[in-house]
């Protein structure tokens, strides 16, 4: 039986000779399950409350804005798509902090990771799949309200090409921020397995640190030390995203907008944070998986 690709436990009663699905199928199934679990689907009713409450809170203002645009007959949205996510970043951070432990802590804490690794799925694929689930969940969470705005805007007769350009900029930024947040919260949750502890750690990284950066930028801008503020912006995922959004003219105002080479640096650091987060998660799963 050396050539078998999938695993169906052969207890010696009756052989299975049918087709076997490979690693790709297992990974895909795990990804879909993870994505569902991030929103509480397939889990208890109580676990659905928080994700859908947050999703509702972040989508409701978009629906209201669309209603206002339609009723008052504005010729433009009062805020851009990237600007909308900037307004709701607290909700996005809370969603990431609250749902990352669901995907990353539970398997490790209850050692059910052993059961996943008993399948032909290598530990790094499990880690990558979990990260992909959380990134996709975050992307869905952030893109949904933006799509509501976009659809509403188009139905209200706004200019299609302007809106589409804005939307594409916003989606690119959301992809970047989702992968950064998933890397950061996923790593924190896979290291500190106590749920509350992981949540507070993620909140520090996603709310407190950006708050500090914004404060530093505001002070730097007031004192005329723009470069200090721009450099400080490299320190948190939200300040990176907002800095890039302002550099790409996507409708986000920051105290110290990055210019020239700084824009490249912002983009590079953002990609680096996402990559390092992912690598750290993989390393963590490999370590736990080998124990």
């Amino acid at each position, binding site marked *: 039986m050396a050539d078998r690709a999938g695993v169906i436990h052969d207890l010696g009663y009756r052989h299975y000779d049918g087709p076997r699905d490979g690693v790709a199928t297992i990974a895909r199934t795990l990804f879909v399950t993870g994505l569902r679990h991030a929103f509480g689907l397939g889990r208890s009713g109580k676990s659905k409350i928080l994700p859908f409450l947050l999703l509702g809170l972040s989508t409701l203002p978009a629906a209201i804005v669309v209603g206002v645009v339609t009723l008052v007959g504005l010729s433009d949205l009062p805020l851009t798509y990237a600007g909308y996510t900037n307004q709701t970043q607290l*909700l996005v951070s*809370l969603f990431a902090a609250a749902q990352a432990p669901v995907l990353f802590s539970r398997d490790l804490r209850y050692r059910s990771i052993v059961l996943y690794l008993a399948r032909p799925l290598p530990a790094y694929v499990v880690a990558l799949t979990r990260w992909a689930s959380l990134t996709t969940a975050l992307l869905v969470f952030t893109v949904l309200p933006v799509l509501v705005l976009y659809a509403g805007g188009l139905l209200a007769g706004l200019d299609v090409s302007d809106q589409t350009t804005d939307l594409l900029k916003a989606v690119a930024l959301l992809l970047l921020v989702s992968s950064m947040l998933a890397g950061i919260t996923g790593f924190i949750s896979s290291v500190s397995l106590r749920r509350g502890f992981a949540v507070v750690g993620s909140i520090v990284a996603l709310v407190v640190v950006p708050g500090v950066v914004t404060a530093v930028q505001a002070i730097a801008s007031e004192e005329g030390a723009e470069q200090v503020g721009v450099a400080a912006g490299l320190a948190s995922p939200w300040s990176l995203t907002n800095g890039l959004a302002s550099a790409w003219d996507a409708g986000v105002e920051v105290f110290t907008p990055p210019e020239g080479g700084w824009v490249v640096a912002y983009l590079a650091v953002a990609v680096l944070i996402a990559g390092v987060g992912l690598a750290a998660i993989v390393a963590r799963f490999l370590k736990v998986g080998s124990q």
Partner: protein
Amino acid sequence: MNSTIIKLAAQALLGRRRFWLLLAFPVLLIALTVTVAALTDAEAAWPLLPGLGYPVVLPLVAVLAASSVLGPEVDDGSIVYLLSKPVSRHSVALSKWVVAWAATMLAGALPLYVSALVAGGGDRALAAGLAAVVAGTTYSALFLAVSAVTRHAVIVSLLFVLIWEGLLGNLLSGVAWLSVAQWGLRIGHEISTELPDPTNLPWAIAASLVVTVGGVWFAGDRLRSFTLRGED
């Protein structure tokens, strides 16, 4: 109150990594204030307190402290060993609250006062310190009550602080009547008028007292009828 439970709760709070996270907040706040005050001037550092220290750092310390004294035991079920002892449940709750309160004062209110001293001092610093003491006390009791009700205490407490008091509090001024932070500010306003004046004083004092006493009592009451549940 029970000195053994206080000792155990203090050990749980100071044990290992949790302590470092708890310590990180005051260090971060004071370091930031001192750096800004040194590089520019004390006046420029002041906005850090109403902008970051008071609305974010103080409640986060209270969340961490209150959920650390009760949360882990509820999480792994070892609370039944504590509850099986012939100690009043209210006394258990009160002992745990005392530890959470002391931690909030030391890691939340005191650093806030020190930062306020660095950023100018005077009446304003004293007022900020008083506001932090009042709000920290109320927060720790409120979050202890939340920890006794739900496993998701940290998230629920954070939702209250960040969404209700933070996001909605900034948009709707009426939220001030039901906001722990604003009650503290109103009481601090009596010392220095530089602090905002969101509600009226009797309401702020009464509400803070009711939430503090009620929170600790409610936590004890929840422990009295405690049921163990699995992960959901």
